[in-house]
């Protein structure tokens, strides 16, 4: 997930990033990263004032695929 955030430039200032990554891992592990809409809903409790949201969704999608491959 950390690498996916780097690959997709899913942050600017980095202030929210550790929390975003924690939530993103839980989102995938709990089986909720099934669509962009679901990812947005399950990640909505983590605010990003730099508004990197599209990049965060892309990062979660990439990490999900890699996490599921193990």
């Amino acid at each position: 997930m950390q690498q996916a955030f780097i690959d997709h430039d899913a942050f600017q200032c980095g202030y929210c990033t550790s929390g975003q990554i924690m939530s993103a891992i839980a989102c995938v592990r709990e089986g909720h990263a099934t669509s962009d809409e679901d990812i947005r809903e399950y990640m909505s409790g983590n605010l990003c004032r730099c508004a990197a949201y599209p990049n965060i969704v892309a990062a979660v999608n990439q990490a999900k695929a890699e996490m599921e491959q193990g």
Partner: protein
Amino acid sequence: MRPFAYEAPADAASAVALASVPASAHVTASVQYKGGGTTLIDLMKLDVMQPDTVVDITAIADEAMHRIIRTDGVLRIGSLVSMARLQADASVVRDYPLLTESLWQAASQQLRTMARLGGNVLQRTRCAYFRDTSYEQCNKRVPGSGCAALDGANRAHAVLGASDQCIATYPGDLAPALIALDARSRGAGQVRPAHCSPLPTCTACPATTPHIETSLAPGELITAFVVPGGPRRRSLYRKIRDRESYAFANASAAVALDLDGDVMRDVRIGLGGVATIPWRARRAEAALRGHRLTEASASAAAEAEFEDAPRAQP
């Protein structure tokens, strides 16, 4: 944050004994129950609530407070079940769409994982004048001090059940859905032993005592919610908010129908985001019952319900 004593009793009776101080259900009370803590801890950090003692009820082992049980058409939900757990319960998803949808559209997944249903129903208003102690006037926070919201930024405030003492909105999503289903609350306390009563947030509008937000007796603990039989499968929760997720309702409606063709044999409506308490829209229900559901009949029902509400000046 002020220092406080922390208690984590292992059973409901011990919790009730710890919390049975005068006025324990009030905003200003010295002892407060803590479930998930998602409202209480915030309000303690803001210095809005200043309990001397916090009684953490999540360690209570009483099984009935943790279980979701269905028997003979009755749904019984323990008060310590989390929002996320009820939302994901397969039989509730199938048979009670309005409950699932009200939870799904409330808060965020992190909060839904922490928050318990008893505390969710008892959550306190998001009125900015209540939550910011730099405002001297708030009848909820400081009884008798006045209401800064009356002449303040009150776009999100209540138009039903309000008074010249308080216009703070009840913010929750689950309670309007529960009252639409005629749910009752099971409680235990020293004044009233185990009993069943209407939801404790639904009984009193803040006419003269906005700091008294519930009908709970001192130390009384909600142990479960009981949903009787009735229309439920043909139901939904519709919520209008400023953001698509993680936002309180500007207005919401929990609706359950029993249809005969397109005629409404029975209709139940709970409203959120517009009233000082979870609001059962009985006038609207009476206007709709026995009629066909059309845009015209729905508009007329809404007009009936909001007849006494203040109107924006053109």
